[in-house]
């Protein structure tokens, strides 16, 4: 387990197609988003990965099947599930134990099969939160430049225009362990100047809190349908880390309700490897991930899968 940010995964990969060429292996934007979410957990080791929403869930499973095999994942209720069929050992390193992305594709192990390896009722989840052995990827109805997040309600809290999820576990998550966010519709309505209610703690408020209370606070990544963002700036304001294939830097800036920090060179978010694409076909054979990016789907912004 490490608190260090992951090594940059965003550089252009060898063998990229030229602009205008078809995506490698027929990869879609949803596939790119799944892989970008998976990268959030790179380097985390044996901690509980808690993804909310389908694309983060597929990302966490992909990370567990490839470069981050020690991650723990729940079934959304009280069981911990590990890759492996009825006859599989399910132990560390199997499958995909080399740590190379996509290395388990075509090895004969099925990415879709899982075994129960443990038990994690809600009371134990809360203990894992307080112990810091967790990295959650939550949704955000609103998110500001310092990573303050709102999932509770829109408008005045006393009588909201729209009651949404409530604060849920966001205050406890953000003060205790790394947190990332998934935003399926990157727009000025979500990436806002000011959130209506601070549920998840951002960097400006964590700085105001000061040490030692803020020492476990880390907002690691924000993955959207357009880009990957992080907070690696002197004042911990949000920065464009990479743009997805086919997205111009100006598109990402225009879809953001506050000025983004932009490095001189903005890399492109990487494509899935052939091995990752093969695994995605196994763990999401019906292609449900495509629906999460469709306008009108609410799952990413308001679905509150609790673990």
């Amino acid at each position, binding site marked *: 387990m490490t608190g260090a940010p992951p090594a940059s995964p965003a550089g252009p990969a060898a063998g990229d197609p030229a602009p205008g060429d078809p995506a490698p292996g027929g990869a879609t934007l949803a596939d790119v988003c799944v892989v970008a979410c998976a990268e959030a957990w790179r380097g985390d080791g044996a901690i509980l990965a808690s993804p909310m929403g389908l694309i983060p869930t597929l990302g966490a499973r992909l990370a567990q099947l490839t470069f981050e095999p020690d991650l723990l994942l729940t079934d959304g*209720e*009280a*069981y911990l599930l590990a890759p492996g069929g009825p006859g599989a050992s399910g132990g560390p390193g199997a499958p995909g134990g080399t740590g190379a992305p996509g290395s388990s594709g075509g090895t004969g192990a099925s990415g879709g099969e899982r075994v129960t390896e443990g*038990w994690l*009722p*809600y*009371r134990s989840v*809360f203990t894992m*939160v*307080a112990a810091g052995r967790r990295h959650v990827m939550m949704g955000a109805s609103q998110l500001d430049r310092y990573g303050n997040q709102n999932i*509770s*309600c829109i408008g005045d*809290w*006393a*009588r*909201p*225009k*729209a*009651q*949404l*999820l*409530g*604060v*849920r*576990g*966001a*205050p*406890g998550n*953000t*003060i*205790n362990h790394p947190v990332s966010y998934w935003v399926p519709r990157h727009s000025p309505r979500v990436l806002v100047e000011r959130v209506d*209610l*601070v*549920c*998840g*703690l951002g960097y400006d*408020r*964590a700085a*105001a*809190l000061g040490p*030692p*209370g*803020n020492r*476990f606070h880390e907002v690691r990544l924000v993955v959207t349908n357009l880009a990957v963002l992080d907070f690696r700036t002197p004042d911990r304001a949000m920065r464009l880390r990479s743009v997805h294939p086919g997205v111009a830097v100006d598109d990402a800036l225009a879809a953001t309700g506050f000025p983004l920090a932009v490095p001189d060179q903005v890399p492109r978010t990487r494509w899935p490897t052939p091995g990752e694409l093969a695994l995605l076909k196994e763990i999401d054979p019906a292609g449900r991930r495509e629906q999460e990016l469709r306008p009108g789907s*609410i799952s990413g912004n*308001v*679905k*509150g899968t*609790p673990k």
Partner: protein
Amino acid sequence: VDGTQAARGDGIVMGLADVAGRLESGMTIGIGGWGSRRKPMALVRAILRAGLTGLTIVSYAGPDVGLLVAEGRVRRVVSGFASLDSIALEPHFRQARQRGAVEFTELDEGMLHWGLLAAAHRLPFLPMRAGLGTDVMRVNPDLRTVRSPYADGEEFVAVPALRLDAALIHLNRADRRGNGQYLGPDPYFDDLFCLAADLAFMSCEALVPAGRLLESGPPQSLLVNRAMVHGVVEAPGGAHFTSCVPDYPRDEEFQAEYAASAAGPESWPGFRDRYLSGDEDDYQRAVRRFHREREAAQAGKTQAGAASR
């Protein structure tokens, strides 16, 4: 109900209406389960029938809170969310908030756990990091912080004890004396709800003879003991329409029917009249009728489809 009665073997078994009769308007009532999972819904329906009002409900909220709010029985909800799980937002709670019809103590879900634990341990508060720096502190101006008296000097939220006048829980099995057993994957916080309360009532899917609980599950499934509860009710289907695995899963079709009852101001009276106007047996009959009609409609569609080809 006293020890003599228990010793005679009658235990502390009572009826749904008896439980409601022990509760009063204005009470603070904790409700076990989580979201739309293993909620003591038959006891909630009994509260509706008894006409209690002005309640403060402490809950990992689901349709328990939704039903009570829809009927205007709740003054304040204490929770971190209100969800039907497969339907992300509890529709009646949502509407009540947007109408300004219910007060809300909005806490991080872990704070709720900590407040129940403090109450169960008879402590005034327990320290916690959750909430620091966030608007949970702004919307709960009574929340205080506390500084560690040791060398670290760290400041924490002092989560106040969530003391309850009464607690309601639903488990899979129980005996007549008040020992209770869960058979699903998660105990939730039902034991803490009971210990945080002055009065605790447990409904169950089935009563089993004393000493026979270990025939249905391992020792650690015995979540609640008879020092924690003041009354036991046998209520088969008592968690409906929430899940009570392994006895039954959530009734998703009926939950959708319930959610539709929040579609507009005219929708709720129809739902109430059809499902909530009688006693618990009437409710269970109305649910069976709902499923029969649903099946008949499906069969009709299939037949019509076949005939048109």
